[in-house]
């Protein structure tokens, strides 16, 4: 293995030279550029999202109103009435359940449906897992796509769910915000909120992104395959085609993350170059970050929005730095063999490199997207740690819609502790927090670690489940922890390293995904219901200011402590032990 440093002479500019010769520095700069671009667009969209949250007309309302009204007429009375928690949550669950059942029927019987070019079909457990994972915005994809899916299933059933899932969560976040803003004791109407999210947010934006992606060369066609004849072999390699661009746009925009192709964004037809890489990264950051920035406008506390942005960025930079350093340093054992080693590029798209792969991977777990442009199983233990830690904190930035719900589980709890620490009764957005809000906030907070640790312990205790793991023991634990945290946080990224498509994991993951999705939405909506009945008190100088720096530090620490205290023992036996092994602290002991 040898590596030739490109001999580019840019002596004319000191900075360009520095950028090209110092790969660590240029890597960090690339990461910061990605974050800056994504933040810029998130900031631009935040005004639009704030208007949606406040229930105001947006700049596109005059076009979208017709569609919303049309569908509301079809739904009838149900779409008009004001709902309390019970009704709202019931509508959400029933609506999702019906969609899930329809999707299940289409997938399970897909071979009987036209446009079936080459599908292998799916068995029961895989179908259940696939439907649940797309319904809960997880997209674990235990199937090998697109081989097991017909184009009909890909284009209509799964893309349909990819719109439905984020719009459901976004509707829930609208109800949550409404609960804080209003004092009538109602959460609004689920169907209305759902239609608004579809027509005002997801459809127009995904249309726009699809056009860009098509222009950049991503396929959107009804052709079944592209036959490639590699010049070094006589055989023909068929590459499946389909509605890749439209899939790709909602995959990222809706923080779904499941790829059209098995290799996800590492496949050239999904992500051909650095521009599409940046567009895709930006589009999955767009709505979660935009919603969080918009909170400053929604609650008329600009500082609150800035504070959340700051905390999220701190996690983002921290995670990206850990992963980047881990991948950049690579495995020292190889360097010591005298190889000119340029960092760990195994399983990465070389045209993107370490920095662009690291920020993409961390972005995918900071949000609940889970898309990947490289193979996580080839990442170094430190590299995995930067990707895994956000997952342990239940995706700090969350998904489309869940961003607001997730961040508020931490904000409410931090407000509770911080208020006590200054001798005030807890309040948030000028509304007093009672024991009911704290109880449900605690429940949302502990749901994530519980639905990860219980299945994890269970799986480890039954050796049959661990039969297909191929790596060494600490890596197996990392893989397993990653699998369940990814399901629980509805993220969907995977390290793999074992046969995921087995009945045990298909069902266990489905259960974890369902609980991780609907329990937290439910708990947060109960809190919203409880807050919606309370009138806000006066803006007091002496309440804990949620936008202040001490609060930001407290929030940051609480997220780290609550997130990590639950998982530290597993981390020690997983990535930290692998790290010790890779750095040759004691060679060969565990293997």
């Amino acid at each position, binding site marked *: 293995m040898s590596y030739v440093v490109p001999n580019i002479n840019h002596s004319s500019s000191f900075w360009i030279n520095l950028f090209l010769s110092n790969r660590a520095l240029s890597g960090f700069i690339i990461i910061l550029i990605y974050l800056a671009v994504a933040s810029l667009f998130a900031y631009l969209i935040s005004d639009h999202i704030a208007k949606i949250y406040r229930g105001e007309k947006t700049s596109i309302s005059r076009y979208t109103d017709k569609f919303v009204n049309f569908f509301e007429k079809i739904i009838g009375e149900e779409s008009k009435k004001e709902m309390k928690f019970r009704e709202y949550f019931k509508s959400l669950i029933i609506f999702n359940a019906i969609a899930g059942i329809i999707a299940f029927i289409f997938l399970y019987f897909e071979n009987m449906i036209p446009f079936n070019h080459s599908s292998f079909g799916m068995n029961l457990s895989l179908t259940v897992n696939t439907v649940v994972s797309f319904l809960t915005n997880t997209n674990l994809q235990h199937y090998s796509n697109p081989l097991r899916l017909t184009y009909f299933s890909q284009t209509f059933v799964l893309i349909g769910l990819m719109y439905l899932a984020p719009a459901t969560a976004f509707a829930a976040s609208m109800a949550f915000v409404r609960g804080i803003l209003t004092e009538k004791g109602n959460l609004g109407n689920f169907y209305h909120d759902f239609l608004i999210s579809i027509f005002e947010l997801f459809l127009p934006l995904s249309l726009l992104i699809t056009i860009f992606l098509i222009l950049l060369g991503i396929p959107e066609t009804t052709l079944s395959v592209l036959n490639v004849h590699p010049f070094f072999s006589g055989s023909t390699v068929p590459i499946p085609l389909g509605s890749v661009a439209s899939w790709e746009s909602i995959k990222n925009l809706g923080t779904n993350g499941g790829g059209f192709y098995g290799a996800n964004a590492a496949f050239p037809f999904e992500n051909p170059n650095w521009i599409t890489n940046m567009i895709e990264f930006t589009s999955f950051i767009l709505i979660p970050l935009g919603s969080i920035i918009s909170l400053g406008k929604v609650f008329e506390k600009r500082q609150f929005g800035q504070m959340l942005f700051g905390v999220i960025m701190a996690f983002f930079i921290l995670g990206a730095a850990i992963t980047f350093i881990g991948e950049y340093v690579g495995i020292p054992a190889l360097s010591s063999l005298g190889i000119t080693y340029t960092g760990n590029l195994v399983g990465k798209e070389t045209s993107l490199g370490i920095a662009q792969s690291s920020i993409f991977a961390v972005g995918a777990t900071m949000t609940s997207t889970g898309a990947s442009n490289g193979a996580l199983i080839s990442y170094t233990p430190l590299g995995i740690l930067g990707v895994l830690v956000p997952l342990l904190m239940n995706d700090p930035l969350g998904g489309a819609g869940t961003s607001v719900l997730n961040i508020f589980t931490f904000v409410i709890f931090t407000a509770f502790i911080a208020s006590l*620490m200054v001798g*005030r009764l807890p309040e948030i957005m000028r509304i007093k927090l009672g024991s009911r809000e704290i109880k449900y906030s605690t429940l949302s907070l502990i749901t994530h670690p519980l639905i990860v640790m219980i299945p994890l312990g269970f799986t*480890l205790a039954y050796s049959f489940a661990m039969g297909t793991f191929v790596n060494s023991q600490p890596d197996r*634990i990392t893989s397993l922890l990653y699998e369940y945290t990814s399901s629980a946080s509805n993220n969907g990224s995977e390290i793999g390293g074992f046969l995921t498509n087995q009945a045990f994991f298909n069902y266990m993951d489905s259960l974890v995904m369902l609980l991780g999705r609907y329990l937290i939405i439910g708990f947060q909506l109960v809190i919203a219901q409880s807050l919606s009945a309370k009138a806000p*008190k*006066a803006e007091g100088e*002496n309440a804990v200011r949620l936008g202040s720096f001490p609060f930001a530090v407290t929030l940051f620490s609480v997220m780290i402590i609550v997130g990590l*205290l639950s998982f530290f023992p597993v981390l020690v036996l997983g990535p930290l032990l692998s790290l010790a092994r890779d750095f040759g602290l004691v060679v060969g*002991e565990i293997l």
Partner: protein
Amino acid sequence: MKFKLNSEKIKSTVIATFKQFNPVFELRNPVMFVTEVAFLFSVVMAILPSYFGLPVTGNYPEFYFSVIILLFLTLLFANFSYAISEGKSKAIVASLRKLRKETLAHRLKSDGTIEEVKSSDLRKGDMFVVEKNEEIPTDGEVIDGSGYVSESSITGESRPVLRIVGDSVTGSTTLTTDRIKVRASSDPGETFIDKMIDLVNKSTREKTPNETALTAFLAGLTLIFLIVTASLYPLSDYMGISPNLMILIVLLICLIPTTIGALLSAIGIASINRISKYNIMAKSGKAVENAGDIDTIIVDKTGTITIGDRDAKKFYPAPGVDYSDFVKYCLMASIPDKTREGISIAKLARIEGAKISEDDVKEYTFLPFSAETKFSGIEKADESIIKGALSAIERKYGIKDQYIEGISKEISSRGGTALPVVRNGKFVGVIELADMLKPGIRERIESIKKMDIKTIMCTGDDEITAQQISLESGIDEYVANSTPMDKYQVVLLEKEKSRMVAMVGDGTNDAPALAKADVGLAMNSGTQAAKEAANMVDLDNDPTKLLDVIFLGKQVLITRGALTTFSFANDISKYFVILPAIFASFSSLSYINILDLTNPLLAITSALIFNTLIILALLPLALRGVTFRPASVSDILKRNIGLYGFGGVILPFIAIKVIYMLLLAGGVTW
């Protein structure tokens, strides 16, 4: 706070401590319940080690024994903290009960005759007579006569206080002069002392909403740690280490928030005990916590900012009025006026040489001062002498006088109060009354303002006096020329801005405002209506105590928050001690053993010793409350996050290392 040691108290505390081991008592506290179950489990495991696959070779038996002892001590300390605070409440209740003894009462029958009944036979609305040096049988309102009452039995203040018609008196206090007629204001079992006993008793049983929320949160985290520890069993099993259940139990106990769990109920009870020590009766623990949350306090000038009533300082006759005549008029108008103001005018007038006795004003009718009219005086057919607020008098008689106005302004500008006197509708002069700021009030107002709490002063005085006093004392806003109804308006106005309001009041007129305020502190000397409307009553009649109550409320909340934060911050360092010890067989993991504790069993024991001793070390803090210095919210947050958050991460590292070294030095080598 002194806890006097005598054998009786020690005995009852010890008994109460051990009674708490009953798991039924622990159920209300999930953290300690889990600890108790873990303790019982560890005992069983130590007895049957082979059944649980525990190694018994080498130093293991000693280790198991010390774990059992330490777990027992953890429970003991938790129960002890509860027993101490409960013991204090019991002592308070017992001393209150002693007051509630049966006495003889002279009940007035409807025909005016007196019958002797037992105090417990008195019902609300009954009238009775109290003679000199008799104990007042039950709570009531004075309806005839006046006299000095010694309240030393409940307030500890030995100086008797004057009680006049309309004032309320408390059962079990003693009338030291004169004879009064009283209307009973409560049925047996509902008197003031009964209510107080009830409150103190309740504080050991009932949780405030805030405590409930915190308990729920602690329960949630305990559940997580339970699952985390349980999952370590299959996890280490899978990694090929045979998991030692006893060590997992130690890990569990170190992770669950035992510190706050052990001290939580003690904090709440201690706060009620402390407020009782202040001689304040709070109607609920919630009221005390609310006090910590106040945005605005509304105070009266008189009594809170300035010393009680004002003393007469100087007489200024109007031009053309003879000095001695003016003094005589003042004396005449003040003789029937039994307020302290009136008495002080009469006293000064006599010093100035006026000679008028009570008989001389017999044929005059007395017009008592009222907050509405704002003047008092005497009148008969052809003569009237009125003294009162300038604006009120100008309005009443429609007169104006430049000289009087000038003098009044001058007096006001030096913080005094001008009391113009009018005889037969003509100004005859001005009495200067001096207002004195209470000692230390400036500093207290300053500290209140540091907490960003707005202060509003209500006073019946004119604009200039009000302005002067608020300038001197540092009050933010004032309402001059106010009547008690205005106070209600101020409360309403602040409530409309959704601010939390605290106020002090004593008159019947204050009752609506007291009821509307979030924290209403009534004076024990005040009317029954005021005491009923308020949610706290001060036995010492010291309005400044409102500030103490606010401090106390904040202190309770901060103590809870600080100990919770500390408890969780500790977990980080305990992880770094126990996990390397559990996984000691992976020598490659030594890089997370940042304390370099090479002996695993000793390291685990050190962590558990720290976990146990910290409860005892923090017990005084829980009972006394954390130190609270008034400052802005942001500063307090910074300080407490630093002290209890980051301090809570660092302290255990140091302490556990020290304990480990001490154990080594002491010759413990396992």
